[in-house]
């Protein structure tokens, strides 16, 4: 297990640094209270609000590991949320609503995967199609309105609590664990990494690259469906225009902050969801720190830039060398870490 810890260490340290930074501006950031059977506090809020991006990041990690990308996840969220809201408001009940939403997500993934694996369209272009068309599909389902509903069972996925923890948080943590087990306890992880590094050689070694590629896009669609369910349950309504808007970019960012290469290959789901939490901690932290809201995006961009520059493989050794020259210490990593704080 030390290997697994070492892999996510940079992300853990970054998350810690962000939390410390926010705490400096907003001292109550880490305070957690127990009220009416549930935990409340800013940090709990981060874990809950970050659920959609964390879920998307789980699927996105697998897609990126195959050297692909899935731009359609935000739109898929909208479609799945619209499907669920439609099913609930038409009176089909909870289980059918979930089934319809998840089926829609898998179908979206099948569409993307087929374009990429069978027709050989570049992933960025293939998923761009659904990214643009998806919101239109969602609008057709909601008939152009915000489709609201009252259904406590379904709303539970957005605002309920399990053992005191927000339901969305439990869902993303479960998804991350289950997907990690799925790829690491079977050979899927190895095969996915293999086709991401060298698809041609992998195919010649007998790996069914086509089916595997379709499967990862379907996994991404499945995760997007859960994200859509959470977003819809949270506001008790499906907003085809805004549900999941631009979240595909946050998900990609989370995967990148998680140290996964956009060129495919080795991947870590744990590092990606930590990346999602880093992004959400920044988002929530900026709001809590009380900056005027017009600063939010700029501050977020600046922080993300700092994180990525610190992670950059060409910069880290150089900074370590510079630090050594300056202070005569052989330890590069502390220097890099201090520079981040």
């Amino acid at each position, binding site marked *: 297990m030390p290997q697994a810890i070492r892999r996510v260490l940079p992300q853990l340290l970054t998350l810690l640094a962000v939390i410390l930074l926010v705490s400096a501006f907003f001292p109550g950031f880490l305070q957690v209270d127990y009220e009416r059977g549930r935990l409340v506090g800013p940090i709990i809020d981060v874990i809950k609000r970050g659920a959609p991006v964390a879920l998307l990041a789980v699927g996105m990690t697998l897609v990126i590991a195959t050297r692909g990308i899935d731009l359609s996840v935000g739109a898929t969220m909208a479609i799945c949320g619209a499907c669920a809201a439609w099913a609930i408001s038409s009176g089909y009940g909870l289980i059918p609503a979930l089934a319809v939403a998840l089926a829609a997500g898998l179908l979206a993934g099948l569409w993307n995967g087929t374009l990429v694996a069978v027709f050989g369209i570049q992933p960025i272009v293939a998923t761009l199609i659904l990214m643009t068309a998806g919101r239109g599909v969602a609008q057709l389902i909601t008939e152009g309105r915000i489709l609201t509903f009252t259904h406590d069972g379904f709303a539970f996925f957005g605002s309920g609590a399990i053992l005191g923890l927000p339901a969305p948080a439990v869902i993303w943590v479960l998804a991350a664990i289950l997907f990690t087990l799925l790829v690491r306890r079977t*050979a899927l992880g*190895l095969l996915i*990494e293999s086709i991401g*590094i*060298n698809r041609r*050689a*992998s195919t*010649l*070694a007998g790996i069914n690259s086509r089916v595997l590629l379709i499967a990862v896009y379907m996994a991404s669609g499945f995760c997007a469906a859960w994200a859509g369910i959470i977003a819809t349950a949270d506001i008790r309504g499906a907003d085809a225009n805004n549900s999941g808007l631009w979240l595909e970019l946050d998900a990609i960012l989370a995967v990148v902050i998680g140290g996964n290469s956009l060129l495919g290959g080795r991947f870590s789901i744990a590092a990606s969801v930590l990346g999602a939490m880093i992004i959400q901690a920044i988002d929530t932290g900026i709001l809590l720190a009380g900056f005027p809201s017009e600063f939010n995006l700029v501050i977020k961009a600046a922080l993300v830039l700092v994180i990525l520059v610190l992670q950059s493989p060409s910069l880290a050794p150089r900074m370590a060398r510079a630090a050594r020259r300056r202070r005569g210490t052989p330890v590069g990593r502390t220097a890099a870490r201090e520079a981040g704080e």
Partner: protein
Amino acid sequence: MLLTIRSLTKTFPGTRALDAVDFDLRAGEVHALLGENGAGKSTLIKCLTGAYQRDEGELHLDGAPISPASTQEAQALGIGTVYQEVNLLPNLSVAENLTFGRQPTRFGMIDQRAMRHQAEELLSGYGLGVDVRRDLGSYSVAVQQLVAIARAVALSGKVLILDEPTASLDARETAMLFDVMRGLRDRGLGIVFISHFLDQVYEVADRATVLRNGQRIVTEETARLDRLRLIEHMLGHELEEQTTEGARHAAQPAAPDERALHFDGFGRRGKIEPFDLSIGRGEVVGLAGLLGAGRTETAEVLFGVHPAQSGTARAPEGPLDLGNPRAAIAAGFGFAPEDRKTDGIVADLSVRENIALALQARRGWARPLPRAEQNRLAEHYIQRLDIRTSDAEKAVGDLSGGNQQKVVLARWLAMNPRFFILDEPTRGIDVGAHAEILRLIEEVTEDGMSILVISSELEELVAVADRVIVVRDRRHVAELTGTEIATDRIVRAIAAPDAKAGEAA
């Protein structure tokens, strides 16, 4: 002399790509430049066109020393090049392509009529019935090639370099191209013609220069250059130095038993003409021929990379489906490809994972190979094949070429295939590893594995093969058995269209 090159030398880290090469091009001749892969043809061309800077040597064009620093400069000096893939813009019209960069203008605007007129004039000598207003992309590759030539001639007009221009043309289009080449030659251009097709060289070239390992071997008029000698020059085998020692074939004639694999009329259009092949248990069949003659194509059709369009494959238990690599693997086939970097290894994965990959793919994703089993496999093959790596967890991309090749071999040996195709198993690896791989081939055939080995090194084939099949122009043309397996016989079979190469052909 139009163009003279004297002792041109170009070195890259680790290799001397060109070693004091001399080359002369007369005005009004077609001069073929020949050689196998890595002989130095493209380096020579790139030094001429300014893509590379030479280390030593002199270039003279029309008696004046030149040293082009860029393709543009070479063009301005009079050296134009047309590559196999046409470097024009298919979405522009023929006229725009021909006048690109120097369009006639009127009041600062492009003068469409003058441009069309110029383009038609440029093409007038080529006998092409094309509408210069149409998009270039709407014409065939051959026409595009001729337009590229017309453009190069118009821009440069002294030396024209054609790098494998006929690779994607059919016979009629090739004839059309040759007519144009002869026309340009008669107008006084010097043409350098690079091709793998020897028939074409004899058809159109006045002289030929052969390069091998960065050195000029010979320059001769094609009319006086015997086809056999030419191939000997290219492959580097003199007829005198026969190699038969160490050969394993002397005793056993190839008698495919009932456990053999049979391929009848196997072929694919554009890759390899239908061929018959049967391989006995424990037999090593060698495949010889020049580059592009159909060696790798044969392997790829057998392994389902490009599935056969005709013919059947049969094993003792019944007909085989070889529609894709997975099917071929299920049928008990293995394939170590020629280009191990792009087709063989998965660079970022560890030695252990690379070795276990094919086995894991066959087991399916749901049944992972236990880690202990993977470690055992890795240790076993690291030892057996003497793979030089610090440990099994090292990324394969960090190993040397020979060790990468051994990892690919280990991946397939772990599968214990009944039929193993090795495409250039010893290319680019050091002598020690070379010998080990040949020894390994001997070893596994004793256990009954059948092997098809493709190699440019004829001694290698002579040493390991029970039978040698010769391919030429994408066809299996000869089969050598027993004592016929000797480098000179193979060379002769590669060379002579009708020479008696072997009874079993």
